[in-house]
């Protein structure tokens, strides 16, 4: 029989997380700090709207781009939270999670051979989506000494004649890094000069601590060259509802709608009705969850500091990214041994790109009790490895 599989698909690397998931699955009593989704349930009033829509028999397709009400609410939200002006009919597409938006944006923008700059460590799907769209991924390695922010120097160095897109994954999973207005302005200057388009994945935009998130689309001159990708998963604890959206230039959105209508038809109807409620009346829920994450974030940074594990001060998403390089083992070995010895699951930094090597991702989407127990075990583990550094070297 001939080989029916596509070379492109076969050539994709399996996700490093998947591999680790298989190991963890065999240890059901492990405490996990490895989850990339909120520990909160979707607020009840939002769930209730989903249930109500089912009761009312709203079980049909919506229009391809999404419910009009939802698109209008998304535009209001982007206006009130980020100062962005979009037209609900022309600039917005409701997608199946932010992930779908990433995929179809790449497909709508790239011609074969176009280069896509992907800062790493970052979420696992940019690179494969780019490859599947016949693009050429070019990795830009974010550095701990830059607080895992993208610098204009790094950007300039990576740009070639073929560069078409820059992916901006901030607030960042797995590092917890954010980009502040000045950082974005410096990046924007380069992008405008070199005429490069941005996919700005802002799925964690509601989860920043100490300062409000700034969208790169709000920097003057950027809106026409930016696709803002966001969604409901992280901010409203709605991961399982699979709902996200993209907002950007009308010409691009209309291409994306074409692909979306053939591949997906429309985002889940129940989820869209629930999301309208989330956008109208969910601000308080978001604020409460943010407050809880922030307390845990401080607790975690403090605990890591106490045990002498250097960790840069993450100010976004719900992850910290401590540096474990000095123990002389790969992050995968570290995570595996931590799991075997202390039954604590963290994700090796290398799962988020080669330059994540030497780090581990710890999620704080867990109750404080859970974090306390787990961190106690991590401390014991680190102690067993000969202890961390002197706390004074904490960055």
């Amino acid at each position, binding site marked *: 029989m001939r080989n029916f599989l596509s070379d492109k698909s076969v050539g994709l690397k399996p996700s490093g*997380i998947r591999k*680790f998931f298989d190991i963890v699955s065999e240890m059901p009593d492990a405490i*996990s700090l490895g*989850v990339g989704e909120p520990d909160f349930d979707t607020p009840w009033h939002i769930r209730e709207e989903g249930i109500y829509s089912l009761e009312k028999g709203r079980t049909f397709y919506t229009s391809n781009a999404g419910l009009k009400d939802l698109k209008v609410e998304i535009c209001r939200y982007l206006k009130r939270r980020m100062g962005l002006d979009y037209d609900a009919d022309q600039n917005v597409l409701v997608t199946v999670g932010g992930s779908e938006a990433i995929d179809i944006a790449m497909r709508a923008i790239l011609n074969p051979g176009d280069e896509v700059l992907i800062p790493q460590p970052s*979420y696992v799907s940019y690179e494969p989506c780019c490859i599947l769209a016949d693009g050429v991924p070019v990795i830009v390695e974010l550095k701990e000494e830059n607080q895992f922010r993208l610098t204009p120097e790094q950007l300039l160095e990576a740009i070639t004649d073929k560069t078409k897109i820059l992916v901006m994954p901030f607030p960042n999973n797995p590092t917890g890094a954010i980009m502040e207005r000045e950082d974005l302005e410096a990046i924007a200057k380069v992008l405008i000069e070199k005429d490069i388009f941005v996919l700005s994945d802002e799925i964690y935009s509601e989860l920043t601590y100490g300062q409000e998130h700034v969208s790169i689309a709000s920097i003057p001159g950027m809106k026409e060259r930016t696709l803002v990708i966001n969604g409901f998963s992280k901010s409203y604890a709605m991961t399982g509802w699979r709902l996200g959206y993209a907002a950007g230039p009308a010409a691009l959105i209309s291409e994306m709608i074409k692909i979306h209508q053939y591949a997906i038809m429309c985002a889940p109807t129940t989820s869209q009705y629930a999301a309208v409620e989330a956008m109208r009346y969910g601000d308080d829920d978001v604020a409460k969850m943010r407050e809880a994450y922030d*307390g*845990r974030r401080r*607790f975690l940074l403090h605990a890591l500091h106490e045990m002498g594990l250097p960790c840069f001060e993450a100010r976004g998403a719900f992850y910290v990214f401590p540096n474990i390089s000095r123990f002389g083992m790969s992050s995968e070995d570290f995570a595996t041994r931590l799991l075997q010895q202390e039954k604590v699951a963290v994700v090796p930094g290398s799962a988020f790109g080669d330059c994540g090597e030497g780090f581990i991702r710890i999620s704080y989407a867990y109750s404080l009790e859970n974090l306390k127990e787990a961190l106690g075990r991590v401390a014991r583990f680190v102690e067993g490895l000969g202890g961390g550094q002197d706390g004074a070297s904490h960055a």
Partner: protein
Amino acid sequence: MREKILWMLEKNSRIDLKELAVMLGTDEVTVANEIAQMEKENIICGYHTMINWENTSEEKVIALIEVRVTPQRGMGFDKLAERIYRYEEVETVYLMSGGYDFTVILDGKTLREVSRFVSEKLATLDSVLSTATHFVLKKYKEHGTILAEKPKDERMLVTP
């Protein structure tokens, strides 16, 4: 800062002060001082434990009593309320808007104890016009906590 401390304490009054300080990004002394001050100002009025008595062998009867009264000249509702809330078996007293005046929640050992209180103590007060006693059959949620279920983490152990 005060509100933040209160929110945390309201959810978990046994929280370690040092942990609380870390989470609020301040030091332990500041938190301890704030709490002491709030205790003094009667903002923090006590620390309670939430118990689901239904899961113990202890028998308990909880009654919610609607009380209608005629406030008397020079006395008002407050004085009247005091005559009710001074009773040790009275758990809660609220002044209400609407169809009746006080909500009185009684935490008794037996049905008989509750009915004795209502008929002998409460109904006989001069200003009390009428009472309507409702017994609690089952508690589902108290103080923001759902009593029926233990939350369980449904998430997969590792996800991107």
